[in-house]
């Protein structure tokens, strides 16, 4: 079976600017793909090329095995970060409106039925997002495109939204999530990391992290250790009173020794966020 969406060496140039540079990406049924990158990395442009809204300068963007078209775009469900709901209409009115647009008549789903009579703007953000999901999923799209689908909601609400997303994937849809929220990235099956238009890393979270590591520093006076390491130019991240330093162990030990700071120094695997920052900053895996 072919891919639901596929970018094959897609390059997109706007005048002298190369927004996407020979990028490869594939989304298959049942899979949740996370597309990561800093602002301006080319995520949105790559996505627009898959939807046929931007034409590649080179390479091929395929939707359901062919050139993207109005007809194939109807098989895609899209939830922007701004949700695209009608805030002055009730949940039920939003639902009915979306169903009519796709020439359907369906009962309101159980996930949002309790709020059927409420105006969208009166709902908490987590519930608004569930309504937007339900609307985007209403025509059983084969490909779902979600932009930061759980940002801004409580952890429990985020977990409920992920249950909705995973249920759609289990039912056979492919899901493409664009995000720079590493909590969302960790929920995806496969990650694609873009830097300056290029795909620079891909695989599951473990593969993207690879052998990258940080040095953990624990000592009685975390403040002094922080100031000394910070002054030495390291981007130190404090996790409570434990310091995480993206640098070789010997270097960190030398800086602490020079300042006569007694500390426990351990090497720990990097988390996804630290790995992402290292990848984007161009550091090679140590």
């Amino acid at each position, binding site marked *: 079976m072919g891919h639901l969406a596929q970018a094959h060496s897609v390059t997109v140039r706007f005048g002298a600017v190369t927004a996407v540079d020979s990028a490869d990406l594939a989304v298959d049924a049942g899979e949740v793909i996370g597309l990561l990158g800093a602002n301006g990395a080319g995520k949105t442009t790559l996505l627009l090329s898959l939807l046929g809204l931007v034409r590649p300068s080179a390479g091929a963007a395929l939707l359901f095995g062919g050139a993207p078209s109005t007809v194939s775009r109807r098989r895609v469900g899209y939830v922007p970060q701004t949700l695209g709901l009608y805030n002055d209409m009730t949940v039920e009115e939003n639902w009915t409106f979306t169903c009519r647009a796709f020439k359907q008549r369906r009962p309101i789903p159980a996930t949002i039925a309790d709020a059927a009579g409420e105006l969208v703007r009166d709902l908490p953000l987590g519930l608004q997002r569930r309504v937007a999901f339900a609307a985007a999923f209403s025509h059983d799209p084969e490909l779902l495109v979600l932009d930061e689908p759980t940002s801004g909601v409580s*952890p429990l*609400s985020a977990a409920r939204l992920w249950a909705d997303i995973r249920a759609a994937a289990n039912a056979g849809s492919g899901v493409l999530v664009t995000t720079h929220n590493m*909590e969302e990235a960790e*929920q995806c099956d496969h990650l694609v990391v873009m830097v300056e238009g290029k795909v620079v890393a891909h695989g599951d979270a473990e593969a993207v992290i690879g052998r990258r590591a940080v040095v953990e520093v624990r000592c009685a006076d975390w403040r*002094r250790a922080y100031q000394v390491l910070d002054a030495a130019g390291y981007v130190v*991240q404090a996790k*409570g009173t434990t310091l995480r330093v993206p640098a070789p162990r010997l270097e960190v030990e030398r800086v602490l020794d020079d300042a006569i700071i007694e500390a426990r120094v351990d090497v720990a695997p990097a988390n996804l*966020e630290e790995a992402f*920052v290292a990848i984007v*900053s161009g550091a090679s895996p140590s």
Partner: protein
Amino acid sequence: MTWGLFSASVRFGGRAALDGLSLVAARSQVTVLIGGDGAGKSTALRALLGLVPLAGGDVSRPGKTEIGYVPAFGGIYPDLTVAENLAFSGRAFEIASHDLTDRSTQILERIGLDGVEHRLGGHLSGGMQRKLAVALALLHRPRLLVLDEPTTGIDPVSRAQLWRVISGEAASGTAVVVSTTYVNEAQRAHAVTLLDRGHAIVAGSPDEVIAAIPGAVGALRQSTQPSGPDPSWLRGRTWRIWAPDAHLPPEAQAIQPDFNDAVIVAELDHDVMRGR
């Protein structure tokens, strides 16, 4: 003198926006308020700053010139350049001009805004605008720094730069209070308070929050949500299940819960107590 909120309540019309919240802003500590949209994070920070009146309880804070504040939206002058933003704020806080120049240069470099001094605030990207707002709030060396969702919507590189500055302020003795919707960020705190509809539903260090989980947490690798009375939620492809009475179903494997699990359990526990 301890700064913070002590059993503070805030009412908007008939609605309790904050209900008996206590929150200590300790020197040299990062205190994080976590919760979803509408949990009461901004109200709590505004109550701490004296921007909304208390219906009950107490608040204690340093004088106005010793406080730095970044609101959830704005906090910069969009029609001024970055340099002008700093000069204007510096003058408002009566910082001597030679000190202001040094301080501005140093903060811009630390926060990753060097090189954009002559761009208009309103023309910066969202992430850069947040960084500028934090830079402005730091300029006068406040003793209490209050940041309302400084990292919402910004990319991980800018996030790391901002947290470097936030932790650095705490390391140099400032009391820092930060709100966020990101669980990962709460783990950077010395003290965390999870807010839900104006209530603190759990508080303590991240390790204490994990240790406070009642019952047991288990993992189940299956595609459909587990049936049965115990609440469950999804992490990647694995379901987590929480048994308040510590009796996990036989098919679940007991696990050591992490901070993310702990926060979800606290929310579930709170829902159960509210009878939902």
